[in-house]
C-alpha cells in the first residue's frame, strides 16, 4: 500500500507503511524497468567520472600541446585532440563535472522555486493564486534567451550564474503542475479532516499534501536535469556557455568549425550529452512507473 495520488482515490496517510518498506517497494518496481536500471548505472558511472576527474583524466582541461594539433582518436589519446592539441578525453572528463553540475543545480533551483510557488498558489488559492500564477506567466512568457543574455551580460559569466539563470527560467511548468496537484488534493477528505482537528497550514502542506505530490515532482525533476544540460549546450552554440573549465556544450561548440575536418572534437561530447540526457529520461520514466500505483507490471 502506498499513498494514492490520483484524485478520487482514498489515501491513508495514517496507514502509510514505514519509509524503508516503501523505498524497497519502489526499488523493486524500478528494477523491472531494465533500461532505467541500465541508465541509472550509466549515470552513476558518469557521476563517478566527474567526481574523480583529476584521477580519470590523463591531462588537465587546460593542457595543450601545439605539436599535437588535431590528432584523430588513437591509443595515446582515446578521443583525439583539438586544434591547440588539448586532449579531448581529458576535456570531456573534466567537462562532465560542469555539465552534470549544471544539470543538477539548475534542476534543483527550478524544483525549489516551482514547488514553493505552485504549492502556495494551489493551497491558498484566491488572490494569492492569481498573483502567483500571473507572475508565473510573466516568467514563462519572457523569451528565455533574452533573460539569459541580459543576466549574463550584467553578471560576470560564471558557471554558477549560468546555472542560476537556467534554473530560474525553468520552473513555471513545474509550478503549474504542483499547483494543479494541490488544487485537487486540498479538497480531499483527509486534508479536510486534518484541518478539522486543528492542524496548521504548514503541517498540512508538509505532512499531507506535499508528500502525496512527491512522485510527479521527482519524475519532473529528473527530466529537468537532462533539459538543463541541453539548454546549456544551446547557450554554448550562441557563444554564451561555460568556457573554463569547459562544459560538454562548450567542447561540442568549439569543434563546430571542424565538424567536417576533425569530426571527433564535437561528435564525442555530443554523444556524451546525448547518452546522459537519454539516461535521465529513462530513469525518469522508470521512476514514473515505480512511483505510479496503477502500474501493474
Amino acid at each position: 500500500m502506498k499513498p494514492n495520488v490520483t484524485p478520487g482515490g482514498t489515501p491513508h496517510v495514517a496507514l502509510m507503511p514505514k519509509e524503508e518498506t516503501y523505498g524497497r517497494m519502489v526499488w523493486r518496481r524500478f528494477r523491472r524497468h531494465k533500461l532505467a536500471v541500465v541508465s541509472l548505472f550509466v549515470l552513476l558511472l558518469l557521476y563517478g567520472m566527474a567526481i574523480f576527474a583529476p584521477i580519470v583524466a590523463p591531462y588537465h582541461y587546460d593542457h595543450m600541446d601545439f605539436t599535437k594539433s588535431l590528432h584523430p582518436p588513437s591509443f595515446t589519446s582515446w578521443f583525439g585532440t583539438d586544434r591547440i592539441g588539448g586532449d579531448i578525453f581529458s576535456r570531456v572528463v573534466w567537462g562532465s563535472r560542469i555539465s552534470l553540475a549544471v544539470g543538477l543545480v539548475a534542476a534543483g533551483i527550478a524544483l525549489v522555486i516551482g514547488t514553493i510557488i505552485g504549492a502556495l498558489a494551489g493551497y491558498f488559492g484566491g488572490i494569492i493564486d492569481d498573483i502567483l500564477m500571473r507572475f508565473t506567466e510573466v516568467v514563462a512568457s519572457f523569451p528565455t534567451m533574452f533573460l539569459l543574455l541580459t543576466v549574463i551580460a550584467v553578471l560576470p559569466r560564471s558557471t554558477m550564474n549560468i546555472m542560476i539563470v537556467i534554473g530560474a527560467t525553468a520552473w513555471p511548468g513545474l509550478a503549474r503542475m504542483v499547483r494543479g496537484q494541490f488544487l485537487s488534493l486540498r479538497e480531499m477528505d483527509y486534508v479536510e479532516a486534518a484541518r478539522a482537528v486543528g492542524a496548521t497550514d504548514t503541517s498540512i502542506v508538509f505532512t499531507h499534501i506535499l508528500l502525496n505530490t512527491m512522485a510527479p515532482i521527482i519524475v519532473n525533476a529528473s527530466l529537468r536535469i537532462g533539459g538543463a544540460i541541453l539548454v546549456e549546450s544551446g547557450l554554448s552554440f550562441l557563444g554564451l556557455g561555460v568556457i573554463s573549465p569547459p562544459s560538454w556544450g562548450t567542447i561540442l561548440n568549439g569543434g563546430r568549425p571542424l565538424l567536417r575536418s576533425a569530426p571527433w572534437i564535437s561528435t564525442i561530447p555530443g554523444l556524451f550529452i546525448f547518452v546522459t540526457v537519454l539516461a535521465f529520461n529513462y530513469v525518469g520514466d522508470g521512476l514514473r512507473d515505480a512511483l505510479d500505483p496503477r502500474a501493474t507490471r
Partner: protein
Amino acid sequence: MVRKALVVLAVVALLVTGFYGIGPSATASPRIAVTINGHPLVTDVAPAIVNGRTLVPFRAIFEALGARVDWDEATHTVRGTRGQTTVRLTLGQRMAFVNGAPMPIDVAPQILNGRTMVPGRFVAETLEGKVEWIQATNTVAITTPTEPAVGGEIVFGLGGDPTTLNPILSTDAGSSTVIDMIHNGLVRTNERLEFMGDLAEDWIVSPDNLTLTFFMRRGVQWHDGRPFTAHDVKFTYDTIMHPDYTGVLRRDFRAVREITVPNAHTLVIRLSQVDASFITKLTVGIIPRHIFSGTPVAQLREHARSRSPIGTGPYFFRQWIPGQFVVLERNPNYFWAGNEPYIERIRYRIIHDTQAMLVALEAGQIDWMGSIPVDDIERVRTTHAARLQFRELRQHGYWYIGMKQDHPIFRDVRVRQAMKYSLDRPGMVQTLFRGYGTVINADQPPTSWAHNPNVYNYPHNRQKAIDLLVQAGWNRVGADGIRRNAQGQRLAFTLISASGDQTRVEMLAIIRNQWRAVGIDMTIELFEVSVYFGKLDAGEFEIYQWGWNLGLDPDNFIFFHSTSGFNAEGILMGFNDVGYNNPQVDRLIEQARATFDQETRRQLYWQISEILNRELPYIFLYNRNAVAAHHRRIQGIVWSHIGTLFPEKWFIGR
C-alpha cells in the same frame, strides 16, 4: 525486449560514429574528368591518359570549346576552326598544323574504344584556353576566354541582412558589399589601390594643399533618371557634418572648413588644416539630394530610400526580402564609357551560418563565398577545383594585445618585450589559421604602401624572455611557477576580450599557455561585445586583445597620437586606449599628415613603425587571410590584394 532496445542503440551508435568514415576520401579514382568553364565535358568514351597526356574524343572537345569541327575520312584528319584559328590533326601523326604552321605534339591522335581521341591540352591551348590539371580529382579544367556579353546571373552568399543600404550610414561589411554595387563615390581606387576619379572626372589641389577642386563627370544620371550634379556631393558631405547625423563618418570630415558649388559641375572643398589622408575619405557613396533633402538629418536612417536606394552605380536596387534575398539589376545607362555592366542580375542569398554557407557553395546553390572557413579550405580547393576558382585575400589590418602603458607591470618596456618574445606567433598562425596569415611586427600591415619590412621580428625565444623578466626585477619563481618581484608581488594580470569567437578562445589559450611557461599568470575574462567596448572606452582594463581593419591611408593619428587617448575628463578621444604617449611619435604623425609626397610620408611612417616596434604599446600579433571562392563562369573580375573592384567589368562566361 531490452536486448532489442540495446541492439537499436548499437545501430544508432554505429550510424553516428559511422560519420567518421565519411570525411574527404583520399582514394583517387582512375577516371579522368574534363571540365570546361566549370561544366563537366560529357563524352561517350571516357578521356584516357596516354604517355602522360590526356586524350579526349575530338568532336566533344572542339564543340565544347566553341569550334566548328569536321572529319576528313580520306586523310583521317580532324579540322577544327574557331574565329581566326584553324587546327589540323591527323590520326597517328605527331605533327599538328595550326593555321598551316606545323606544331609537334607529344602524343599522336589515335583511336580508342572506337573513337578518335586527340590531346586535350594541346587543342584547348591552341584555341586560347587555359588548362589546369587538378591532381586530387584527376580533372583537366579548361577555361576558355570569352568575349564579355550581357546576360546571366550570379548568386552571392551574404552572412546576414545588410543593416542599411544608405552609404553614409552603413558600418558593416555586409551592407558595404551591396552598397558598392549601387553607389559611386567622388573617387575610387584601382587594382594597386591608387586613387582615381569616379563621379569626379578629375581634381586639382591648391599649392597650399588646403583647397581641393573637383570637376564632375558629365551626363551622369541617378537611377530614377534625374541628373547628378555637384550639389548632390555637397549635400552628402553636409549631411555627414550635420550635428544630428547618426552615422560614424563625421570624424573623416573634421578638417573641412567649407564646401562650395560654384557651378553644377564643380565642387570646392576648403580644409582648415592640411590632411594628406583626406582624399581617401571621399570614396564614400554619394546620396541623391532630390530624394533626401526634405528629411531631417536625424531621420535619415528611417527614410524608405535608405532601404531601397537610388544610386548612380552599375546596378539598380530591385528587391530586398528580409532574411532571404537582396536582388540587384543591371543599369544599362551606367556612365563609365566602355564599361557597361554585363551581368543581368546579382542576387545575394542571406545565409547566417558559415558552415551552412559552405554547404550551399558546395551544393552549387551559391556562386560566391567571400571567405571559406579555414579548416575547409584545402578540402574544398581539391574537391571543387574544377568548378570553383579561389583567391587568397590579405587582411588590411592586424590583431594585437593592448597594454595600459602606466600599469605597474606593463610600464616597463622589458616586460612588454619579454611578453612578445615568449609568443610563438608563426606557430599560432600555423595552428589557428593553417598558415593563412602573416606575423605582424608594427602597425602598418604588408598590404599598406607604408609597410616597413625591416622592423625587428621578435622571434620566439623563451630564454630571452626570461632574461628580460629577470632584468625587470621579476627574478623569483614561486611554488606555483609564477614569477615574483622584490616586493613579493606576483606577475599576474587579467586580460579582457569579447566572447563569441572560437578562434579567439583558442588563441588566448595558447597565449596564456606560452606566458605561463615563462612565469606569467594571465586570467582571461570574456565579455559580450558591447559590454567589452564599453570597458575599453572607459579604460576599465589592464590588458586586452582586439584587432583593427584599417583605412586606405596609413594615417595612424587616431591610434597612437597622445591626444587620441583619455582627455582630462576621462573621455577617450580616439582609440589610444592604452595611453601611449611619445612626443617624438606625435611629431612624426603630425608631419606625415601634413605632407602630400608619398615617398616622404613613407619615410616618416617607417620611423614610426620602428619606434612602435621597439616600445611595443601593442604586442602586434598577426593578420589573417581570407580565401574567397567563386564559380569559374564568372569572369573579368578585377582584384586588388584586399578585395574586388569594378563590378561593371565582370561578366558571365560560358
